[in-house]
């Protein structure tokens, strides 16, 4: 079954249409990269995946059930910045998810783990830090780390909780170009090893093509110069990146046909 199904999804704020007639099926372990001009609903889409926004019309399903209406541990997130905790050391930042998780009374009452659970959390966090190359910095506070290291930390923090879906909101947008390629290798390795489904918003088209197994382009198909908010954005291209040759052409044809059909449906409606 598909992990994410979006059917005839609309998102409007009053008169303003942000997303219109969005349709999307995503299988488990896909790496979906999302590109598009600013103001084309990428962030709104991500916020819906997080559970911060509800659809105005249509369905947004996770495993065939409507998405919960608040963030949860099944969907991890890495923002462009501000997503690590400044008051915790690197190791504590990674341990946090393990300490908060679970039905044990100490987790629910104090948000902490004790004794053997704590030791186990520490071991797992150490292993995770080794995996992302931050073990040497484990006792530092985030403010002492470079931007790239902070993003590694944020990724480690989310991945250790084994989320089924990992959302990346322009995670490397603020980093030096040289660092990005390291980060790309890291994220691909984690994606392989932990078998997550990844949605990644990026401004860098090249990054989108390089990392994803599938690239979505968000854009407005119709524009009214007199009323720029009257029409929303939708997925205009859905490009499979892990297939080549004739398969690719077929997939592209099918994708274009799907888009065309939706457009007709919209125009009829």
């Amino acid at each position: 079954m598909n992990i994410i199904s979006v059917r005839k999804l609309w998102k409007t704020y009053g008169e303003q249409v942000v997303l219109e007639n969005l349709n999307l099926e995503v299988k488990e372990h896909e790496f979906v990269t999302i590109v598009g001009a600013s103001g084309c609903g990428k962030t709104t889409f991500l916020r819906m995946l997080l559970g911060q926004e509800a659809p105005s019309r249509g369905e947004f399903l996770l495993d065939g059930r409507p998405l919960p209406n608040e963030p949860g541990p099944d969907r991890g997130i890495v923002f462009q910045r501000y997503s690590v905790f400044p008051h915790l050391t690197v190791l504590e930042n990674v341990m946090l998810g393990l300490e908060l998780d679970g039905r044990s009374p100490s987790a629910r009452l104090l948000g902490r783990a004790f004794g053997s659970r704590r030791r186990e959390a520490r071991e797992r966090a150490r292993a995770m830090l080794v995996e992302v190359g931050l073990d040497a910095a484990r006792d530092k506070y985030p403010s002492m780390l470079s931007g790239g290291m902070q993003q590694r930390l944020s990724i480690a923090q989310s991945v250790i909780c084994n989320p089924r879906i990992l959302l990346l909101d322009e995670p490397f947008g603020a980093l030096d170009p040289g660092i990005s390629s390291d980060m790309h290798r890291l994220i691909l390795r984690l994606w392989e090893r932990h078998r997550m489904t990844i949605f990644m918003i990026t401004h860098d088209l090249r990054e989108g093509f390089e990392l994803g197994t599938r690239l979505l382009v968000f854009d407005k198909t119709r524009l009214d110069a007199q009323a720029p908010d009257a029409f929303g954005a939708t997925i205009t291209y859905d490009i499979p990146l892990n297939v080549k040759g004739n398969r690719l052409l077929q997939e592209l044809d099918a994708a274009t046909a799907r888009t065309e059909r939706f457009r007709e449906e919209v125009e009829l409606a």
Partner: protein
Amino acid sequence: MRLVNRKPGRMAALSLGALPFVLLLIAYLVASGLRLAENPDDKLMPSFASIGAAIHQVAFTENPRSGEIVLWSDTWASLKRLGIALGASALIGLCLGILIGIVPYLRAALAPFITALSMIPPLAILPILFIVFGLDELSKVMLIVIGIAPFIVRDIALRVGELPAEQLIKAQTLGAGSWPLMLRVVLPQMWPRLIDALRLSLGAAWLFLIAAEAIASTDGLGYRIFLVRRYLSMDIILPYVVWITLLAFCMDYALRLLSRRLFPWAEAGARR
């Protein structure tokens, strides 16, 4: 070189900092000398010798009747009131501030009320406090708490609101419920903010303390100042004022040091 680009060295900065104090002392000495030359019984600007004698009297000599040293018993009484009031205000400020800052329903219910409460001039309700809580310790402590707690509550609530939304969402994706979120993410980040808020409200706390002691008390620094005012005892009032200032300064400094020592992560963040 432009004036705005010239920076004093360490020694120069120290001496420049001391300069206004020295100037003030000199001005006092000169004025006091002139007045005393004209009228040796002048009480308004006593000489350093008579101030010294008064200090000796209040700070180092036991009162023959009670066996207490006046300055120390006054200081102890005042600091006790101040300490209890600051502690209570900090506790109220932290708990209510975090709840108002993070729980939208509580914010809706309490924020306007706290804002209105903080607009009441505390001295205006001092008579009510005396009537309700009596004339002893409780009413004085309550005056300080009412004076500064609403400010701390509002300040902490604002600081909680300034936490990046990304952080709070991230914590939820790590499995944090509301309570662990407050406990592990919000509260620890509010400690240094609380100390800042306390430092900022120290001045007001002293003001309310002195006012309460002046009106109804039998000991305390404020009580003493207002008592000896009847005899125009500037030789006692002036050292007391200096002593209060010194105490306030030391408390501020101690809080700053404490914050730096306990929360190194906040310092590192502030420097960037």
